[in-house]
């Protein structure tokens, strides 16, 4: 394997239009589907008048609740929202589908959908985030304890020489993959075939089988390519069951492609959080207490916990740590994990508070972090499996030229630009999940790997080539990777930054099995070995799972196992108008062994852009009267564009974590999005003297009195 890394084997297909995404799959006689959605956030459907729609040209059917089969009840996860549409008269959230129009063409379906009239009853004023009670979540995406405690945080704060306490908020945000979710469904007798845009064909297969009371082998899910997901396609959202149900009722294939507006309500979002952090420290900058409280918005019928405070339990040494998380059940569609979940919003609060503490103490913010580097996990006392945060901070600071920083706010003006330098640490939990893969060697020595994994942009086909090449000693180009079919060996899913560990280890195991069966050594020509063994073909399946005593989501019970990084950002703030521009950034990461440096670098710079969006652009407002997201489009909900980002100096420090998995790799998909918002907000403080505690950073805040 070269240090430069492998170009993507999926590149030619993607660059010529040959790559088939879910909505691209041809199907003779498929009906086009269009959804009719509820325009109220609660209440019940009183009447649905579909007469005019049914008479529109080309319309095959308008399906309402009465037409659809009753589906089994399942929790979230695996469902995105536990109440599926068209199963009851109750409206759970604005945007919930209430009818499906099927027509010969998309134009006909969309027009007819606009002619369906609905009336509602029992609609009450929506309850917004901030107006509901903070409650302990009891189901849904929770992943562990909500309250953690060590030592006496109250006493630690009381005896501190310096304390800071502040409240931070993060905004409602939307994943907005450029590919809208889509499903093409048809039935072959009792066999259901789904071409769907998902982050896990395995989760989709199992969940759809359960919903339709079928054995899993009666459901085939195909998804070689996913046009971005970022969490929006991880759990099972309504397009899958609705397309399948419509296909069953109509007896024809049904193609259901979400509109961009529907993506804002029917594929989850990252919910707004409100977090309060209190830090106590001695005069020389040693923490005496760390307290982190958080509440996030969730839906009325679903508890989604953003898990914002977890990283506060392992990042800094402190004799007392206290964390607490709650949710508010409010009127809105269901939230779901979004790049980066948990630490993404959580680290904005912690790393902003650390900057505030650095200023209170008069200690350099890099130095403050170094002084609180723990020897063991501060909450659990477990050893770190690998932890290179100090190296990230030191290398990043060196590269950025941090030593030249003049600490005083507003002290680095250049012309009309207020220049600010900010730093923040990044960290991400290490989730792990089982995976499997099949390696087949042909008589000509050609190697085929099959895996249920779908290529979603993270570069897994090249990673698989790299692992096979490293294990067998062959050329990466000799390896063909087939992926994204529930008929292939299952992979848990391209989510949670888990795939390199699980799939990579499974592929390595399969490749080693090949060598063992051939009694061969790495680097020996495979065609020759096969001939010597008298075989024309050889197949081996490899599996990998986290160790048996692993905790929920594959977290280690024996080690404090995480990834780390350091973000250094320079902003230029227009002194008159408050416009914030990011002018340069240096990032350094420790995330285990890097299997394909080329794609890994793109993952980290891409992740950085997510943090940039969180810092400066992305927020979705909920209308307080209508209880709906106001801008369900990409003109009102802003994503980072090319001109937003400067050149980024991103790199990895040496790391290797054999406790995480045999490859020594860890997850990189989400880490890049963490810490960026805090680094930028800290830079804005350094530039302007304005402490921004509410994301995104807005002109009005920057221009306001400090």
């Amino acid at each position: 394997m070269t240090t430069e890394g492998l170009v993507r084997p999926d590149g030619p297909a993607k660059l010529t239009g040959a790559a088939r995404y879910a909505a691209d799959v041809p199907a003779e006689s498929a009906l086009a589907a269009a959804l009719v959605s509820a325009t109220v956030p609660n209440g019940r459907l009183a009447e649905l008048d579909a007469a005019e729609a049914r008479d529109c040209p080309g319309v095959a059917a308008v399906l309402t609740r009465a037409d659809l089969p009753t589906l089994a009840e399942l929790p979230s996860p695996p469902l995105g929202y536990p109440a599926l549409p068209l199963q009851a008269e109750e409206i759970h959230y604005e945007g919930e589908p209430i009818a499906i129009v099927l027509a010969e063409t998309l134009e006909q379906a969309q027009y007819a959908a606009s002619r369906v009239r609905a009336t509602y009853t029992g609609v009450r004023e929506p309850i917004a985030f901030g107006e509901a009670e903070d409650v302990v979540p009891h189901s849904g995406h929770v992943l562990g304890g909500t309250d953690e405690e060590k030592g006496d945080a109250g006493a630690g704060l009381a005896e501190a020489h310096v304390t800071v306490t502040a409240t931070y908020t993060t905004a409602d945000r939307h994943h907005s993959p450029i590919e809208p979710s889509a499903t093409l469904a048809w039935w072959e007798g009792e066999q259901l075939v789904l071409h769907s845009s998902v982050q896990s064909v395995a989760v989709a297969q199992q969940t759809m089988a359960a919903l339709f009371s079928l054995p899993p082998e009666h459901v085939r899910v195909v998804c070689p390519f996913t046009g971005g997901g970022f969490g929006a396609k991880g759990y099972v959202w309504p397009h899958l069951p609705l397309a399948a149900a419509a296909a069953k009722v109509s007896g024809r294939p049904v193609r259901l492609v979400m509109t961009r507006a529907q993506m804002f309500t029917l594929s989850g979002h990252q919910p707004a959080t409100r977090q309060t952090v209190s830090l106590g420290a001695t005069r020389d900058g040693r923490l005496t207490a760390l307290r982190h409280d958080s509440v996030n918005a969730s839906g009325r019928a679903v508890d989604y916990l953003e898990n914002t405070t977890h990283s506060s339990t392992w990042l800094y040494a402190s004799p007392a740590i206290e964390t607490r998380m709650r949710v508010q059940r409010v009127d809105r569609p269901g939230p779901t994990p979004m790049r980066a979940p948990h630490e993404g919003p959580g680290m904005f609060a912690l790393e902003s508070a650390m900057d505030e503490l650095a200023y209170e103490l008069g200690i350099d913010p890099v130095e403050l972090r170094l002084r609180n580097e723990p020897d063991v996990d501060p909450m659990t006392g477990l050893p770190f499996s690998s932890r290179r945060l100090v190296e990230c901070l030191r290398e990043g600071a060196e590269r950025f030229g941090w030593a030249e920083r003049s600490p005083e706010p507003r002290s680095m003006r250049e012309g009309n630009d207020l220049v600010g330098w900010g730093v923040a640490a990044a960290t991400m939990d290490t989730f792990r999940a089982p995976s499997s893969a099949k390696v087949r060697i042909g008589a000509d020595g050609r190697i085929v790997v099959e895996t249920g994994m779908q290529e979603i942009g993270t570069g897994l086909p090249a990673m698989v080539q790299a692992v096979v090449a490293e294990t067998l000693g062959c050329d990466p180009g000799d390896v063909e990777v087939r992926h994204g079919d529930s008929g292939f060996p299952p992979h848990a899913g391209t989510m949670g930054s888990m795939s390199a560990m699980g799939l990579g280890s499974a592929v390595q195991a399969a490749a080693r099995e090949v060598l063992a069966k051939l009694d061969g050594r790495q680097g020996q020509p495979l065609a020759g070995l096969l001939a010597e063994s008298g075989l024309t073909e050889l197949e081996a399946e490899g599996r990998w799972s986290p160790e048996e005593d692993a905790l929920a989501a594959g977290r280690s019970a024996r080690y404090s196992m995480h990834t780390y990084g350091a973000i250094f950002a320079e902003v230029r703030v227009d002194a008159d108008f408050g416009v914030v521009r990011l002018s340069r950034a240096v990032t350094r990461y420790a995330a285990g062994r890097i299997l394909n440096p080329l794609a890994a670098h793109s993952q980290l710079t891409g992740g950085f852009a997510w943090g940039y969006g969180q810092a400066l652009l992305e927020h979705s407002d909920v209308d307080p009267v209508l209880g709906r997201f106001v801008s369900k489009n990409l003109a009102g909900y802003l994503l980072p564009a090319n001109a937003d980002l400067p050149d980024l100096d991103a790199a990895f420090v040496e790391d290797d974590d054999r406790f995480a998995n045999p490859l020594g790799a860890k997850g990189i998909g989400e880490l890049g999005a963490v810490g960026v918002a805090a680094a930028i907000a800290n830079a804005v403080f350094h530039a302007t003297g304005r402490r921004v505690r509410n994301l995104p950073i807005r002109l009005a805040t920057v221009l306001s009195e400090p």
Partner: protein
Amino acid sequence: MNQDTRLSLTVNGEEREIEIDPRATLVDALRDRVGLTGTKKGCDRGECGACTVLVDGRRVLSCLTLAVTVGGAEITTIEGLAGEDGEPHPVQRAFLESDAFQCGFCTPGQVLSAVGCIAEGHAGSPDEIREWMSGNLCRCAAYPQIVAAVSKAAVR
């Protein structure tokens, strides 16, 4: 409202006669009637650029273009960019080498936009490329690599 109309299009150098709903946009006509699904629909409102194609050499958003308005025009989609011998276009080659794509969904639009950007003479510097490629959103944010790829292809 629903009377299909006959339309002649030249797509990737090939003349096509299709029956089309007058409400159909160019992106839907290409995907559903011509069968070329390389052109992607990301937002259907001209916000993301995923549906970018070349119409008479100019980059346009095919989701904001009614198909019936481009009768007789020369349309180039991602499927028609490679040379006749299948040799990749210099922009396609540069995107592959620079890792200028990830999930690949915005990529056909990025590539055609890059061809337009270079033809317009807007690829003179990284800053100029960033500005003139900002109509094409990439949620994976392969932006730095896209700038590198367009710079590289512009020189070729």
